[in-house]
């Protein structure tokens, strides 16, 4: 037992207690949490900083506004409904089309067709706070549904894969691609059963994947190889992630991005408590990378410089 702990310590693996006590509590002041916990605010901040985000169609802030849903959606066929203060991807509904016979029936990313009533109930629940972090009242966002880039078509089951970059005090420290599976219901969240694949920061190429804490090299549904895919516009993605620090002020930050077929990388959300599975996906420890960043830390570096530094500092092992 202690032998394993020693080995993990040697490999620079970050544990939950250490993450919470040494990084989140030290580097992420409580008052900054609302900036990233509330997706409406995150979107506003990112837009002000000139970063690309999915378009916001409308916000439903209370029960009375739930019926304005149809008006917000208008004639659009695809959109995403998400709780403003949701956590871990819970409560996100991806609508990819409408029933051919009835305009008020919607097809979800999973292929299931649901009625407008069911969607309204979901929005009510969201507004009531079912998915919010603290169970308090919430808002529902209705926004642009990303048309994902063909790069990951082979290794995604429905849903949209996204790219998570963990940024330490402005420096990208580690990245992974999260690939939806049948088990994850098209959602790109590891604990829901999505596959996470590490990314070589230097090249933007994917490494082996991890599923439920185990290393995999094929996508469980499509059978395609997970490793060796080159993420387009990698430099831009790294730089955007690094900029997330300047926008939010959070020293230990997870930046989630998606690549849209037409609009390129978009910032989906930011996270003040990024999980630790990224270490398994990369077969590398966050603690050792953070130590490396601390060594060369330069307060006055620009996001682009920090991204460039991370590229050369953290090539894939082997």
């Amino acid at each position, binding site marked *: 037992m202690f032998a394993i702990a020693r080995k993990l310590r040697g490999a620079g*693996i970050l544990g939950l207690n250490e993450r919470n006590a040494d990084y989140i509590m030290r580097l992420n002041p409580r008052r900054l949490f609302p900036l990233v916990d509330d997706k409406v605010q995150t979107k506003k901040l990112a837009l002000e900083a000139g970063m690309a985000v999915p378009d916001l169609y409308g916000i439903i802030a209370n029960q009375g506004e739930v019926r304005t849903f149809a008006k917000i959606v208008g004639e659009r066929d695809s959109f995403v409904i998400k709780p403003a203060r949701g956590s871990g991807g819970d409560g996100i509904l991806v609508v990819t089309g409408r029933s051919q016979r009835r305009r008020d029936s919607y097809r979800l990313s999973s292929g299931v067709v649901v009625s407008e009533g069911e969607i309204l109930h979901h929005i009510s629940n969201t507004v009531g706070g079912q998915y919010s972090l603290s169970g308090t009242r919430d808002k529902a966002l209705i926004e642009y549904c990303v048309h994902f880039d063909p790069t990951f078509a082979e290794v995604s089951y429905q849903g949209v894969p996204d790219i998570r970059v963990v940024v330490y005090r402005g420096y990208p420290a580690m990245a992974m691609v999260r690939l939806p599976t049948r088990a994850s219901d098209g959602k790109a969240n590891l604990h829901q059963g999505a596959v996470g694949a590490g990314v070589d920061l230097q090249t933007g190429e994917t490494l082996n994947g991890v599923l439920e804490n185990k290393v995999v090299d094929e996508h469980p549904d499509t059978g395609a190889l997970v490793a060796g895919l080159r993420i387009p516009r990698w430099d831009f993605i790294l730089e955007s992630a690094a900029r997330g620090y300047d926008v939010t002020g959070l020293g230990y930050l997870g930046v989630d991005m998606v690549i849209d077929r037409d609009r390129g990388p978009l910032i989906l959300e930011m996270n003040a408590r990024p999980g630790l599975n990224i270490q398994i996906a990369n077969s590398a420890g966050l603690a050792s990378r953070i130590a490396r960043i601390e060594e060369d830390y330069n307060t006055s570096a620009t996001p682009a410089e920090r991204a460039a530094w991370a590229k050369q500092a953290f090539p894939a092992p082997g």
Partner: protein
Amino acid sequence: MKQRYVYVLAALLTIVGLSVFTYKWQVLGFPLGEDQETPVWTVESAISFDSGPGSIKVQLHVPTLTPGFRMLNENSVSRGYGFSLNYGSGGREAQWAIRRADGEQTIYYRISVYEDDSVDQSDTTPPFPPPPVIDEPFKTAVDVLVSDVRDHSADTASFTTELLRRVNDRSPDPNVELLMAGVDSNADFVSVVTTILAAARIPARMVRGFPLSGRQRSAALVAWLEVHDGDQWLYFNPATGEESFPDRFLVWWRGNEPLVNVEGGSNVEVGFAIQQNHLDAVAIAETQAAQRGTSAVDFSLYSLPIQTQAVYSVLLMIPVGALIMVVMRNLIGIDAFGTFMPVLIALAFRETKLLWGVVLFTLLVALGLSIRFLLDRLRLLLVPRLSAVLIVVVMLMLFISLTSHRLGMETGLSVALFPMVIIAMTIERMSVVWEERGAADAMRAGLGSLVVAIAAYIFMGMPWLEHLVFTFPELLLVILALVVLAGRYTGYRLTELRRFKALSTD
């Protein structure tokens, strides 16, 4: 730097907690174990006499210095007499006085003592006694005996032993025979020995008391010999010369003075009765602390009304449960619903007992969960839905109680002790997790909650732990220190070792 503050704070809390604890334990004698009882002896002396025509004054020697025993309390029962305690040459004296009394009178004096090895003879060193004035021919007999014994001894102790051997000899020499001629009681015998010792310039005195053992209707006083060797008092058995003290010997008074002195009365009789009973060690410690004027007892939970005590004996276990929660969550890393839900469930387990608790809890959650899924189809808003689940939980509890009562299983009635709001929230959380993350995750967290609750129950149900925390609430400071330390524990959780195992291979 923060780390150091944490250590300092934890150390401070631990030191304060443990030192108050040690003081109460070692000095005040609060018992560590539960239900610890200390034997307490009550010695009652009854003085009866026929009253004379005038005023009456009764003096009785009462225990003053009692090596090996500590006094719990003393009192006197007398009708119409004025009572006072004074210090005389032989120690404390109780005195009763009355202007007029008719017929036979009885006065009671009662003292309760318990064993305490820390009580020592704390007498001052006596001066060398003046040579006693003895008439001839006794003087010569004493002088010969003393010089003879001196030749056969090395120090005070051996002198005394040798002297006692000679005076107890079956065929005594003529000197001894002469000295002991008028002796007809044990006390007289010891009295003569002290006189001989005084002639040898050795401070000695007679001690009288009782060997305490069980229950005695009429206890007889035993005379013992006390000799000072310049450093301390030594005790000798006057009949054998052995240097010893009888087992559990309660010293009543010292010196040659009579036990009781009654002025204005006749036919004086003094009887002693001894009774042994057991008293809760906590009560004794409290009495003792009160005698010392310590404020530790003013803040003791035992001073609260019994009902409040019962509440606190449960409430004080919650910090223990919280500590278990911290260990399970941050050190072991078990998933559970709600921060303190398992502790509250564990509290309910205390009443239902473990097996039934687990059965009832599982039953309640399973039934509640299935009804919650039915409710889901109605698409209720969040708060009404939560309320609906709560009402269903209450009805389920009622149903379980009634059914089990029908079946003759009274344990089922205790289901009412479960914190229903907490259960309703658990059901709601569990159903959300079920929907969002699948049945496996929901079951895992549900099971985790149960495991933590069982662990908390096991610790919170330990009677000695409950006694310890209740008697020494300052130990909560130590628990606080542990929790604070755990709050800065940045090592791996036990479950993380498994989670990251794949990364430890090189």
